[in-house]
């Protein structure tokens, strides 16, 4: 029963979270901490901290963690599938329509207007990450090194992350 409840609750969170990432935190708070009292505020803060340190979207991480705490591995699976399910359905519909109509002049025009905004969104994401990332002089140095590697030597992003992790251990440990 808890498994079904987890699926439905996280499907609701997935459905109403626009913009991803931290946009869903207030919603999780309301559903998980206040409505169901499945977690305390302190446990939730710990999950956010862990989500920042582990790969993957915060939304998925929170779902897996809460699901496991309440229903073991089955609960974790139900909550994770639940949080992904609404976007899966919606994106499949979007993709079908997009692939069908992408050559229409009106659709082409819409996407030509949308593309500069997507660029701006990603640039803004880089800017907003700077504050947490650049705590001392090593931050900008690592960032410049990665940019040079990316554009001069076609450095693979995964290798860049691994090398930066090693650099972090050497510098900060």
């Amino acid at each position: 029963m808890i498994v079904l409840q987890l699926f439905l609750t996280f499907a609701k969170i997935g459905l109403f979270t626009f913009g991803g990432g931290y946009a869903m935190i207030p919603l999780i708070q309301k559903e998980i901490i206040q409505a169901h009292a499945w977690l305390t505020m302190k446990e939730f803060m710990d999950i956010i901290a862990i989500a920042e340190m582990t790969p993957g979207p915060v939304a998925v991480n929170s779902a897996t963690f809460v699901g496991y705490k309440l229903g073991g591995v089955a609960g974790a699976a139900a909550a994770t599938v639940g949080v992904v399910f609404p976007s899966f359905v919606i994106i499949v519909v979007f993709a079908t329509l997009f692939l069908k109509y992408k050559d229409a002049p009106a659709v082409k025009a819409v996407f030509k207007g949308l593309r500069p905004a997507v660029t701006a969104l990603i640039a803004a994401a880089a800017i907003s990450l700077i504050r947490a990332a650049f705590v001392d002089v090593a931050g900008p140095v690592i960032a410049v090194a990665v940019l040079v590697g990316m554009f001069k030597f076609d450095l693979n992003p995964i290798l860049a992350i691994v090398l930066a992790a090693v650099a972090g251990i050497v510098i900060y440990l």
Partner: protein
Amino acid sequence: MRLLLQMFWSFFKIGAFTFGGGYAMVPLIQKEVVDARKWVGNEEFIDMLGLAQTAPGPVAVNTSVFVGYKTAGFVGAIVAVLGATLPSFLVILAVAIFFSEIRHLPAAEAAFGGVRPAVVALVAGAAYKIGKTAIREVRGVILGALALVAIAVFDIHPIPVIVGSAAIGYFVFRRDFEVEAGAQPNAEADAKAKANTNADAKAQSVPRLGPEGEADDSPGARGASRRGSAGVRNEDGLRDQDKVVDKQ
């Protein structure tokens, strides 16, 4: 089957190395899906990101579903989203099981001190690469600048910014594509298109709200005067502008 396995592995790698949420996944998907595998084109990738942002759910999940669906249909979408979410599922499961021991691991914290600035650089690099494809002319530069100001300065939510830019795109660029789609655009049709584009732009600048609204007059007027004075065909005009932007 081979394609599905490849796709699962690609998205598994992407999922396993996305730290910092959301857009941190963009450079990885770009490298793996656009550059290495060529499953989607440059422009298509940007369009997917735009759609992924307007649908609910994590951008990373949405993008993986989109790429999977486009490349290998419904099964492809399931395989891609499984690949993208499985690493974090497994890691969080492990963390949940050994929670107390892992919370303050100095080595992990030190490693993240190095990873965070790298992610800034990767996302900035992705923005640059995307911008090269997305912004090909002056009107695009103006749209992008307005969107950046809206998001970074006025803290406007991404969805109204994307929807607003799409609406502006519809009114500013539609005639260009309609002319392009027409078999043989003669001078008269061209002149009509010019007049209509201009009229559309003017008509639309009234009801739209926010800083995006300003985009209408300048690009519309620019486009009209460019086409009017030079008398060149549309695409040539665009290509000339491309060069100017590239030099900048």
